[in-house]
């Protein structure tokens, strides 16, 4: 019987059916559900690693140890794991190793929209791209075979639209979990220059063999139709092409690196007009052009964002755009949840008018209106290093009016080494670690400092306070971010200090611990003078009634965290008695 599955669940299913017994990841939208689904299989070892580099290194060890292994991350996670990635391409594998890169065209939940098919070319890895959940399952299983047959890690490249779309999947039987024999083989696994030179030869031989394989693999197929137009496409773009242009000829690539030169040349010869439809970078188009084949691509289609069937119909079939009703609708940007402990931090930082080096998580929303209390945010863990650089460029005076803000999961991911840099090179940063006891943005995954594993079993809990002291921070304090006075006093004191300090703002994410802090609230209209101070904290639990010119609590959304109460200068927000 067929079942609906999001692409990510189908990838996990495919790995399971292929007998994978180890799965590692750091959570990141849109990749998160791959390994959280692997964790549901009892006979699979699954883990949340502290970051993607560690996830891949654990994966490499498991593969050398003989297990079929799945490693998953979002596109920018591959950057973090790029160091081992490029060299595991040399060592090759023992047990099959499949690395999933979940790209995010359109940046639904990311800081850039890099196209990771490029990694396949640079690192010399086969790259497989499915176009729906059934293929995600089947191609993942096949990827393990390819990995072992060609002695190479395989990159499975998906996009948000595949990861988070549900389509029907016919499940297969779970395969056996086979542990291959481990034999010491230093020339293959020890990448010293002398050995690595030998492996590079193997890599190039392998790419030649893979290019031959690409010509006949079931991953690539031609669907003949009207030969006046031939489309080469892959991934979800294939579905858009089929929807928009049901009659044309299509060469659908499931293996996008290396490309099948003969197959493409012969397809090109048999169609009048050849067009590549690929989201983001012209990865396929440029290679075809380099072979001297006449092809169109990015002169018709944008380098930006996601494609759609209607876009393809307009560019290639002359369809008219749908009419616009021109309703002028105010935008609805995402917001911190009611009761979110981050709100108080950014409210305070804004009041204090300090420069804020930010980081990645729900709290990046502190950059948006109405809090607008963030100056820069680049990648996971960057806040602390950026604050150090700012200080070295602009001096200690400037640093006395600047903080770095980073979440607990992000700190563990890659905030520790820059903190060591700050201590070692005598910075004076004030670092706020917003410890909400979870990886919130991606859907509340555990991490080393929650003391719970992916399988929900208790484990040794990383003590962030002790860790920070151990790297040489002498000024460490823990405050409750919902107590605004204490929080502000702590930040002031630490900013004045000409030494590095860490303030741990500790309070669980409002979605994992919704216990109200105060009782049910209301706004006393007698006392409210309509100043809107409470509105400027950006909480959907409180709104402004324009007719009455008074604030009011929305009892359906307010979770009684008490923050607006502290912000009101007229004590107008009160507890409902009785």
């Amino acid at each position: 019987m067929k079942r609906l599955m999001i692409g990510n669940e189908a990838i996990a299913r495919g790995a399971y059916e292929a007998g994978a017994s180890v799965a590692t990841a750091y959570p990141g939208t849109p990749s998160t559900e791959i390994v959280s689904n692997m964790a549901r299989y009892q006979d699979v070892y699954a883990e949340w690693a502290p970051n993607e580099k560690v996830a891949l290194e654990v994966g490499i060890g498991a593969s050398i140890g003989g297990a079929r292994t799945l490693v998953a991350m979002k596109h920018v996670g591959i950057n973090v794991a790029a160091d081992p990635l490029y060299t595991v391409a040399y060592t090759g594998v023992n047990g099959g190793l499949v690395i999933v890169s979940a790209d995010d065209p359109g940046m639904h939940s990311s800081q850039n929209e890099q196209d990771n098919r490029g990694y396949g070319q640079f690192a010399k890895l086969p790259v497989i791209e499915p176009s729906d959940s059934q293929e995600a399952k089947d191609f993942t299983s096949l990827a393990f075979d390819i990995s072992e047959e060609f002695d190479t890690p395989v990159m499975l490249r998906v996009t948000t639209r595949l990861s988070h779309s549900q389509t029907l999947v016919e499940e297969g039987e779970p395969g056996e979990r086979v542990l291959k024999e481990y034999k010491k083989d230093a020339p293959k696994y020890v990448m010293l220059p002398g050995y690595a030179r030998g492996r590079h030869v193997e890599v190039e031989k392998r790419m030649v063999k893979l290019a031959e394989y690409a010509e006949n693999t079931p991953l690539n197929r031609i669907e003949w139709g009207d030969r006046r137009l031939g489309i080469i496409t892959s991934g979800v773009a294939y579905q858009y092409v089929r929807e928009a242009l049901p009659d044309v000829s299509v060469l659908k690539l499931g293996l996008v690196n290396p490309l099948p030169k003969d197959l493409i040349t012969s397809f090109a010869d048999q169609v009048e007009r050849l067009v590549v439809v690929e989201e983001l970078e012209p990865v396929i188009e440029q290679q075809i052009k380099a072979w001297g084949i006449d092809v169109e691509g990015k002169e018709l289609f944008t380098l930006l964002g996601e494609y759609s069937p209607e876009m393809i119909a307009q560019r290639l079939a002359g369809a008219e755009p749908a009419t616009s009703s021109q309703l002028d609708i105010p935008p609805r940007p995402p917001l911190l949840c009611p009761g979110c402990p981050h709100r108080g931090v950014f409210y305070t930082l804004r009041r204090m008018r300090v420069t804020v080096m930010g980081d990645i998580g729900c709290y990046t929303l502190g950059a948006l209106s109405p809090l607008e209390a963030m100056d820069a945010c680049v990648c996971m863990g960057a806040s602390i290093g950026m604050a150090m650089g700012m200080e070295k460029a602009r001096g200690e005076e400037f640093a006395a009016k600047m903080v770095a803000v980073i979440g607990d999961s992000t700190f563990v991911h890659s905030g520790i080494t820059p903190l060591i840099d700050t201590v070692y090179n005598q910075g004076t940063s004030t670092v706020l670690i917003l410890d909400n006891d979870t990886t919130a943005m991606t859907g509340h995954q555990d991490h080393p400092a929650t003391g719970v594993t992916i399988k929900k079993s208790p484990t040794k809990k990383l003590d962030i306070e002790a860790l920070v002291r151990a790297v040489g921070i002498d000024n460490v304090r823990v405050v409750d971010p919902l107590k605004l006075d204490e929080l502000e006093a702590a930040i002031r004191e630490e900013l004045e200090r000409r030494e590095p300090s860490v303030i741990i703002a500790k309070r669980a994410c409002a979605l994992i611990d919704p216990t109200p802090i105060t009782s049910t609230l209301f706004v006393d209209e007698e006392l409210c003078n309509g100043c809107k101070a409470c509105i400027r904290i950006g909480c959907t639990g409180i709104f402004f009634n324009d007719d009455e010119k008074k604030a009011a609590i929305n009892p359906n959304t307010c979770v009684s965290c008490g923050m607006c109460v502290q912000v009101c200068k007229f004590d107008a927000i009160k507890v409902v008695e009785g």
Partner: protein
Amino acid sequence: MSQIMNVLITGVGGQGTLLASRIIAQVAVDLGYDVKVTEVHGMAQRGGSVVSEVRYGEKVYSPTIPKGQADVLLAFEKLEAARWLDYLKPDGIVIINDERVDPLPVMSGKVKYPEDIIDRISQLKPKTTVADATQTAIECGNVKAANVVLVGILSKVIGLPPEKVEEAIRKLVPPKALEVNLAAFRRGVDWSVHQ
């Protein structure tokens, strides 16, 4: 393409649009259709504008609904009906929950919530129905069941067999919330719908 039923479900992150789209999709699967659903995860779920797209029929290719081809737009919030209106066919059906959730620019007083939004939508799309699903859900015992009230209305409009929808609800809703949700669903089905 005309053989495919395209249902667009829109709302505000946290309103339960995901459950609604999953119920509809499950029913379509049980009826033997090819089905695709696409949904929003990640940042927009924090109170942003969210959309789920459900498509079913003989054979479905794109997981997204082409602009101008949705048969039905089910909106959990009034502004979110207007925001996605252009995805609807000219004679498409709009079902709107009479719920107002102020987006940030309104909360902070930069712009006013367009009070007349339902009238403007009805002028553009005559087949517009407004339902107070929030109130109905409260009457059924839990405000959170508003999404299932709307599923009830929707399923009547697109002609899904109620017993199949109840079956899907049983599969997808946790046992302790089941009674409230089934009651909410039946109230939705009973709602008189403008055809």
